[in-house]
């Protein structure tokens, strides 16, 4: 049973090799001459003021959460689109139902004003 997980293990190894490999190479091969300007969050940008540990308006979290919700729901469309031909009308109506439910949610948050940044 464990053998079926072998491709996943290989993928994890490959992904970490590439990730750490590129970072490590640039660390080993590249030149390091740090200056205060280079170390700023935005080199040649606006100078940062104050601490980053501040309280944010809850609106940011709401927007982020709504984004994740709809983003994840869109991901379901990919596997569906790949096998759309095999699923035919069954797949079409299943996805239609799904999209309608998502749409209902979208209309709900829209009319509730969750997408309106200026509304309290």
């Amino acid at each position, binding site marked *: 049973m464990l053998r079926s997980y072998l491709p996943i293990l290989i993928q994890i190894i490959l992904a970490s090799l590439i990730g750490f490999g590129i970072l490590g190479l640039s660390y080993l091969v590249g030149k390091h001459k740090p200056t205060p300007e280079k170390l700023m969050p935005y080199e040649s940008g606006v100078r940062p003021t104050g601490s980053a540990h501040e309280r944010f308006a809850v609106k940011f979290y709401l927007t982020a959460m709504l984004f994740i919700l709809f983003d994840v729901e869109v991901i379901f469309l990919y596997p569906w689109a790949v096998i759309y031909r*095999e699923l035919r009308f069954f797949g079409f109506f299943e996805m239609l139902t799904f999209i309608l439910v998502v749409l209902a949610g979208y209309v709900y948050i829209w009319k509730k004003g969750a997408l309106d940044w200026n509304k309290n």
Partner: protein
Amino acid sequence: MTLPQVPILPILPELILTLFGIAVMLFDPFTAKPHKSWLSSLAFIGVLAALAGNVLLLAAEGEYYNGMIIVDSFSVFFNFLFLIIAGLSILASRQYLVREGVNHSEYYGLLLFATVGMCFMGGANELIMIFIGLEITSISTYVLAGFRRTDLKSNEAAIKYFLLGSFATAFLLYGIALMYGATHTTHLSQISSALLTGRIDLRLVLAGTALMMVGFSFKVATAPFQIWTPDVYEGAPIPVTGWMSVGPKAAGFAAFLRVFFVALPALDQKWFWVLWVSSVLTMTIGNTAAMLQSNIKRMLAYSSIAHAGYILVAFAALTPNGIASIMFYLLAYSVMNLGAFAVISAWSLSGERRVTIDEFAGLGYRQPWLAAAFTVFLLGLTGIPLTAGFTGKFFMFRAAINSKLYWLTIIALLNSAASLYYYLRPTIAMYMREPGESGRTSAPQDSAPLQISMATKVVIAVSVLAVFYLGLFPSTILDFAQSSAFLVH
């Protein structure tokens, strides 16, 4: 590739509830504030439609969706129970939500969605399905518990229930994973046959059983996993507390019963003693702590713990009669508790004031009918003859006696007798004390005549009738329950 045929009938009540739930949510932003109440009527119509759909299920017994969903009289019985609870709760909430200024239709949408989850728990034939049903129910319940969102206690209740509930769900899920690891299936009857082959790792199965038991014990609030109950029940809005103490609890018991009697009967001698000890602890802790409470919601929270303990007595009987008596008792307990909470909701003042037991003083003179109904519910919860509570307890304890659980039954009877003390306290306050005697000075507007809405009156009247009907003519419901308690072979 063959395409799956999708039968709609086996999940008809769930589908109807989902559609109405979505409709309630969707129409809410389009409805002006003064007209919001029609959405609660829409939700109520949804429940009635689902009840009609559930009648059709009686003719569709069998397993569906690769065995994930089972339609049998057990699941149909629980569907009826959940829908009755949802319908009464919707009616009981209308006046309260308007009074507390939280008349948002999401309340009714969440209530319908939670009922969908509960129906799935009753009809699940497979561990993953039970988990999904449990999650649908729990997530809606977390939000409902914090529905008075400007109130600190309500927030506390929601956060506590959310954190502890997620933790308990993780236990359940881990148990499911271990069970799958040992038996290579999540299908309940296949687990049962895998256990009989003897070619499985029993240690894994036992660990999985223990973890699942933790998860279910949390959801039905039995000792030692009952700690969250009083705080959550006290903080949640009154109608939500009433609903939570019967709905999700009954759903938890439905899944608990099905998993342990269908999948794990081969191990019943191992989990029997866990049930026995948990039952004694639950009853005793619930009843003892209930005597010390001054807040009526906390008192009924501990009382609901005690009742879960009585139910475990019949659970430990390990017989079809025990299961049937649990089903009957869950119905009886539901109407008694929903009725009691409807009375509390009617008597309390905005901001959830006037909810201590002392503050029920004088109710007997000011609202004789309300007080009489409350007395009926409290006597029913005690288990006084002629009420549903008595017949329910009688059947449960008889099932335990038939399984020769003499000590457990004696402990349960002693507990039941002791509970009379705290159930009588509000009654004494209502009839034998003058208002203000407890030293509290009540504001003048507090003694204004009570306005009780028609919906609340209907809930209370239906509950009183049901308490007497189940108490005097239990045979119809009990026969139906007995015909569906096939679970033990």
